[in-house]
């Protein structure tokens, strides 16, 4: 290996500062280890929107010449390490520039590494991560996703843990000493953070993933048209109007088949059709027009179109009629209304279980109460992970706080 190429896949805005710190940290750590490097973001991913998957890159090489081979690109064609700082991205990513759902490990080279922060079990993650036609390694830092925002930065040591882990994955480019020295000199560095990096180095869990393992879903793909096959005048066909759901009743709009957006989601709405008063508010207010009108006048959130913003939960006037639940507890994008129609009792059981899971129904974006940082940090440092116990959900907050 003469060069190591890393991508950081993150959620736009929420993890923008985190990703920028990681790629800068990689290059500065490599420099302390006598290597050269560059850090950059995928230009097309800016300006970023809430939750949209985006990428930053860091490339480190033995020589400046080797580095130049990898420069002046929007994104590398392959990477040695795919760093994922939100495990709900394990299902694949879809930003406006990536053409449909792309496996999270798509750019990872054979025998490369997917490095993820997660408190999930490996087997659970592998139900989401797509199969790959070459073996690779899955390395886990036991921590939950670190979310904050554009203006605040959550000092939960995620960035130094990633750097410590990389020292284990690519020791010839980032030595642990180099990482520690770089952290010490960085404007945000501290001795405590150096300790965190060392712990991440020591505790990193790595396991080989075989070509037989993973989600068998075939990702979306298409041929890029030749210039003379493309429509002229920078025009594309519009999305046609929709149809009634069935028997002339209800309404299902046509949606863009090339851009489904659901990987943007870190939470999804779960709907109680029995208590819905058919007020239309969710249908009208959803910024992504996700709701399909059902023949009975209730509204089903289309899970291929929903980006998980939570507006529907906020506007629904009925208590616990719409509840946002963490994406990691779902297996697929199946219709909730169809499940309810088929077996109302079974749906009630399923729904109660989903919305009753406090870990999955509170949000973890940013800081939600004074002292949360100190509480979480202590717990993270002690155990390498922390229970998700608090957060601010939507309008129904008081009913959901643990």
């Amino acid at each position, binding site marked *: 290996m003469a060069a190591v190429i890393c991508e950081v896949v993150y959620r736009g805005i929420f993890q923008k500062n985190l990703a920028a710190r990681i790629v800068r940290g990689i290059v500065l750590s490599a420099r302390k280890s006598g290597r050269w490097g560059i850090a950059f973001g995928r230009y*097309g991913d800016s300006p970023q929107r809430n939750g949209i998957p985006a990428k930053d890159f860091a490339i480190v090489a033995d020589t400046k010449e080797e580095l130049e081979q990898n420069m002046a690109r*929007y994104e590398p064609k392959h990477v040695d390490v795919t760093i994922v700082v939100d495990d709900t991205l394990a299902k694949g990513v879809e930003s*406006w*520039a990536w053409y449909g759902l792309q496996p999270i490990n798509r750019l990872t080279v054979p025998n490369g590494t997917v490095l993820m922060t997660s408190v999930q079990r490996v087997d659970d993650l592998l139900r989401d991560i797509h199969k790959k036609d070459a073996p690779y390694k899955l390395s886990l830092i036991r921590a939950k996703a670190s979310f904050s925002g554009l203006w605040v930065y959550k000092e939960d040591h995620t960035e130094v843990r990633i750097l410590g882990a990389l020292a284990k994955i690519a020791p010839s480019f980032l030595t642990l000493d180099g990482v520690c020295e770089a952290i010490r000199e960085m404007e945000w560095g501290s001795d405590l953070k150096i300790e965190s990096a060392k712990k991440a180095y020591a505790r990193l869990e790595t396991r080989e993933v075989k070509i037989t393992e993973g989600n068998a879903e075939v990702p979306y793909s298409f041929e*890029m*048209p*030749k*210039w*003379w096959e*493309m*429509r*002229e*005048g*920078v*025009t*594309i*066909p*519009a*999305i*046609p109007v929709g149809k009634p759901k069935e028997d002339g009743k209800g309404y299902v709009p046509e949606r863009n088949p090339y851009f489904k957006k659901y990987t943007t989601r870190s939470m999804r709405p779960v709907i109680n059709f029995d208590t819905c008063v058919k007020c239309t508010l969710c249908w009208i207010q959803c910024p992504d027009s996700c709701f399909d009108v059902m023949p009975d006048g209730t509204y089903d959130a289309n899970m291929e179109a929903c980006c998980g913003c939570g507006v529907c939960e906020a506007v629904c006037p009925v208590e616990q009629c719409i509840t946002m639940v963490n994406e990691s507890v779902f297996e697929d994008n199946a219709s909730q209304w169809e499940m309810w129609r088929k077996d109302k009792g079974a749906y009630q059981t399923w729904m109660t279980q989903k919305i009753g899971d406090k870990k999955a129904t509170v949000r973890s974006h940013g800081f939600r109460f004074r002292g949360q940082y100190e509480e979480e940090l202590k717990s993270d440092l002690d155990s390498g992970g922390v229970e998700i116990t608090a957060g601010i959900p939507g309008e129904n907050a008081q009913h959901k706080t643990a």
Partner: protein
Amino acid sequence: MAVATKATPAATDDKELLISGSEAVAEALVLADLDVVTAYPIRPYDTVMQAIAKKIANGELVAEYIVAEGEHSQFEIVKHASTVGARVFCGSSGVGWMYAMECLVVTPPLRVPMVALVGNRALDDPGAFGVEHNDALVVRDVGWLLCWIDTSQEALDTTLIAYRVAEDRRVFLPLAISADGAFLTHSQALTMVPPKEKVDRFLPRYDRGDLLLHPDNPITVAPQANEDWVIEIRRQNNEAMKRAYTVIEEAYADFRRVFGRGPENPWFEEYMTDDAEIILVGMGTISLPIKVAIREMRAKGKKVGLVRLRWFRPFPTDRLVAALSKARALGIIDRDYSFGSPFGSGVVANEIRAALYNAERRPPLLSFICGLGGREVTLEDVYKATDMCYGAAKSGKSDATTHWLGVRE
């Protein structure tokens, strides 16, 4: 000897009117049954908007006349009107044209066949009204069709031809007709105005086809694209510009067939070039003093000719090279500048140098800048340029500089 300005006998059904270049454009717009026109005043283009307003007020033309709050909106409005199938017209001058720049650059990739009149005017500063060609020339690289006219008759004829070319499905590009401020926009000459039936035989309806923005043809126009798409879109634009060569030739041939007048060579006018030792080249009304000077010089035995370039985009490379490479020396007179360009030459001189690069015979070429800001181009200026060209013909060498004529020094 090719003389393009010989008197055309009035065809029986044409009316002869004493009108300015701007009024001639307005006559053509009535004949072309224009749908939407936008206006924002700036001299000298404003004469066109006044002439069109008068036509509409008099009931000769039924069209939407929209006064915008600035040039940017002016061009945006017609851009949108064109995508829903309207035949559109607009125009500007000098820094007004510059103010519309964002819209000017998006029309070629969107394949919007708007026709615009640029009343050429010096760019500020200093604020001035006189002619320079730099305003229209700023769009030379981005996919606009560009031509220069020098008489009221040519203004009328070229406006009709402009719609025929721009609105051809093979082309669908915006087209700017450049007219020298004051000399053409404000001076009246006798002009033949054809009857509508003839125009209908020449100019088909604008059919936007599959690119029409209409509820029955739902499309999205101008979505964002990343690096996977842009070069293909540029390639399409390039192809449309290349196809314009054929479409322009066809349009002029058809124009001659229907109207019984118009040049055989659409691209440039050749004045006394058949036996010319020295050929001068220029665009627009600069041709008038040059022609007078040529007649004077010929009386004294100097074989001088003029090529007046009509079409600048697409650039008539092959025909121009064929016409110019037979001379002993060339003198290119630019009414524009391109500071810091090769040899400090104007835009036309540099284009012609480039065009001649592959020619088997490359005559020595001298580059002149003259008449900026509306400064009169005198016979003395032309004599001086010609004498220098004879010097170059004798030495067989181009000089690596550009000569400014008519500057106080």
